């Protein structure tokens, strides 16, 4: 009897312990009224130094904390607008650009913004030579000559370039994060071992933007605090709190419960799941990343235009976009993403197995087999399986070689792949970024190591090389646009690249949030316009 009682008591104790675990102790808080709370996966951030940041999440911060001489304006997305410079002009010979600074703008430290700060920042980017430095190196700026090429005179910044490039090319590049203006005095006060303040700027800010970086903890989040008196008008919220939430289902729950205001990484399934929720809304947008197949022309088959054409007609573009990629990607068939100067938005190719078969027969390629490198990410594998299936229907055997991303990139860079399914994000908001990679390869030799995507696929673009070089020098904006359009048409009909999709952004947010701008294909997120 004693035993029974005791046992029951243990049972009760155990139950009580479990109950305690589930007791309603939570005081559910909404997000603070004056703060914008965002969930995203931000583990791609390597640095928040604007002259080093080169990842999506890092550039989002840079865009809100710093400004450049010229800026993309979210409310006026028609090319570069005055930023810290009020006006600019280009010399007759097209090799000298003079920017006149606005007056009365201050950094978050209180220091006034001078032409010297702007020149210093551009020189700093070239000198510390981090990943995005090449965007500026394109103008002939090197660590050795940049002090002469980039100078400040009174309230003007004078930029000399080595060739008479298309002016829009320079302006577009100056809107990139790497060309952000930093507070020279503050940054140099934090210099350690000649790093020009790089170590300090990785986690601190010294800019003119609408926000200052209040704290940053890798893989946890960051906090931005609004400044008073920003030249573009004060931010509508006092602070922006970014929480690193890697799991989409978790983001969705947080959003549904109102614990965050915006979720940026929801899957198509989640987007569908919240579609009927009146408290939430979805903002659709495209990003700059494009997905493509490419074929290494060291394999002679891939020089056969009919064979390449057969493959172009053997992909179920729309079917993929509607099913496995639902909402996450849109069909896109040219190397410039929608949003770029000269981007082609028509999509001439669709799945036509009979046509593909006929083209294959015409090509004379016997029993073709494609070995396709694919990264071990779910969406890519699904895409590849669909392609494997439709290629199969057309009589082209596909073997998938699924592997780790960095390892496959290494093979790709070494021209060791046969075919590969890849994505490419543009580096700066000028068409040259993709033209110079997809359609430019001045030396197709292995030793040349040109590194462009064309080179990696052993593709000699021939005439396209000249078109790329000419377009980047064209000083008439409209003509330049037409040149890119023509170039893309030729490229998609003759090159060993099949561009298939452009990435879509689905930002889900509480219905009281408005004014959120993701930056689309050419810019980064802007938080200063958001109201809630």
């Amino acid at each position, binding site marked *: 009897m004693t035993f029974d009682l005791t046992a029951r008591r243990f049972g009760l104790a155990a139950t009580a312990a479990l109950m305690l675990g589930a007791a309603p102790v939570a005081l559910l808080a909404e997000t603070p009224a004056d703060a914008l709370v965002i969930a995203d996966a931000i583990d791609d951030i390597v640095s928040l130094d604007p002259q080093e940041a080169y990842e999506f999440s890092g550039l989002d911060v840079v865009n809100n904390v710093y400004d450049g001489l010229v800026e993309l304006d979210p409310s006026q997305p028609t090319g570069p607008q005055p930023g810290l410079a009020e006006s600019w002009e280009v010399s007759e010979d097209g090799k000298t650009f003079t920017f006149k600074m606005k007056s009365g703008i201050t950094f978050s430290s209180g220091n006034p913004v001078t032409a010297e700060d702007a020149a210093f920042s551009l020189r700093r980017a070239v000198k510390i030579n981090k990943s995005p430095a090449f965007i500026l190196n394109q103008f002939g700026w090197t660590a050795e000559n940049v002090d002469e090429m980039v100078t400040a005179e009174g309230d003007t910044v004078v930029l000399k370039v080595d060739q008479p490039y298309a002016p829009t090319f320079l302006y577009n590049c100056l809107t990139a994060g790497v060309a952000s203006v930093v507070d020279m005095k503050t940054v140099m006060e934090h210099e350690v071992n000649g790093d020009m303040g790089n170590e300090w700027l990785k986690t601190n800010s010294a800019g003119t933007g609408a926000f200052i970086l209040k704290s940053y903890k890798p893989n946890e989040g960051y906090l931005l605090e609004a400044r008073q008196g920003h030249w573009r008008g004060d931010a509508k919220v006092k602070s922006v709190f970014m929480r690193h939430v890697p799991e989409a289902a978790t983001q969705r729950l947080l959003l549904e419960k109102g614990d965050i205001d915006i979720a940026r990484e929801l899957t198509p399934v989640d987007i569908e799941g919240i579609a009927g929720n009146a408290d939430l809304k979805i903002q659709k947008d495209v990003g700059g990343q494009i997905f493509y197949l490419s074929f290494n022309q060291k394999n002679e088959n891939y020089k056969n235009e009919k064979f390449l054409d057969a493959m172009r007609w053997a992909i179920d573009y729309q079917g993929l976009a509607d099913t496995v990629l639902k909402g996450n990607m849109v069909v896109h068939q040219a190397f410039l993403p929608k949003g770029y100067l000269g981007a082609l938005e028509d999509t001439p190719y669709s799945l036509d197995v009979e046509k593909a078969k006929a083209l294959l027969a015409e090509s004379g390629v016997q029993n073709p087999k494609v070995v396709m490198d694919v990264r071990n990410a779910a969406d890519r594998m699904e895409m590849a399986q669909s392609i494997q299936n439709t290629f199969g229907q057309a009589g082209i055997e596909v073997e998938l070689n699924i592997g780790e991303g960095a390892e496959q*990139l290494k093979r790709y860079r070494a021209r060791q792949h046969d075919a590969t399914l890849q994505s490419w994000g543009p580096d700066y908001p000028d068409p040259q970024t993709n033209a110079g990679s997809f359609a430019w390869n001045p030396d197709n030799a292995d030793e040349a190591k040109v590194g462009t995507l064309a080179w990696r696929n052993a593709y000699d673009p021939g005439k396209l090389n000249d078109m790329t070089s000419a377009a980047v020098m064209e000083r008439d904006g409209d003509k330049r646009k037409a040149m890119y359009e023509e170039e893309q048409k030729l490229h998609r009909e003759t090159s060993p690249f099949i561009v298939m999709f452009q990435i879509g952004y689905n930002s889900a947010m509480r219905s009281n949030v408005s004014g959120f701008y993701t930056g689309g294909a050419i810019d980064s997120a802007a938080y200063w316009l958001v109201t809630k």
Partner: protein
Amino acid sequence: MARLRGLGGAAFSLAVTLLGLLFVTFIISRVVPIDPVIAIVGERASEAQIEAARVALGLDKPLWQQFFIFVGNALQGDLGTSIRTGEPVIQAVARAFPATLELATLATILGVIAGVPAGVLAATRPGSLADHFVRLVGLMGYSMPVFWLGLIGLLLFYGVLGWVGGPGRLDAAFDMFYEFEVTPYTGMILIDTALAGRWDMFVNAISHIILPAGLLGYVSMAYISRMTRSFMMNELGQEYITTARVKGMPEWRVIWVHAMRNVMVPLITVIALSYAYLLEGSVLTETIFAWPGLGSYITDALLVNDMPAVLGGTVVVGVAFVVLNLVSDLLYRLVDPRAR
């Protein structure tokens, strides 16, 4: 003297274990056919930039040299700099480990509070409904995927019922300004907020930790109750138990004093093991609950081949294992006179 020798021996075994651990992890990290440099410099880097990064990381040196440099630095508390985030590993680990420690400790406490009585209950009434129930609950605990349990738990207790806080360690309203308002003495939010007298944050932190801790506690309870049951059944079949019962000793005393003393010895190992397992960081749980702990830190680092971060994290896990071993050794001596 004997005690001193014991301590010396422990220190020696600690050193050997750690060195072995470092060695194995280091070798594995270097034989995987993945080039960490590409992951850092990105897709567009030129050959020159790649080479510069390789030199900067010391990857151009012979393997044995890299190993000695790593061990030498580790001894001075420098675990290197994370390739991915550019943050000193020691700093990142110092932030991630307390988060895991807090979660694992609470989970283990819950696991023991629920698991030991449940195991005893089942052992004392074998074949009964209670026994079957405990075994069923236990079976579910270690056969159901934690990932699934976590999501369902979140959906139910946070999403539908609203009893607990959501993913993350605090609500955004507290989390944003946490570091400016609370001194992170231990890095464990429950302790630090209590020390700071911020009871509003403390309560909020409880509401956030209770679900992941309860979930991990459940998994650990499943293991502990199963082992307790089998240890206890084994003891209850012993002659000294029969003797005690024949002498008319109350049953609770027979179980909780006589049998339990002997069950304790193996049980300590079981609990320590389960605790150590949780200290490695439960990756899936940490991911779902957006818990910035050691498990997700090491896994994220592994995915991009950020070897300094992986090695640093492993060292900390290794130290935790060795320390737990040491503590359970001491506890043995406490409960079992023969081990003294």
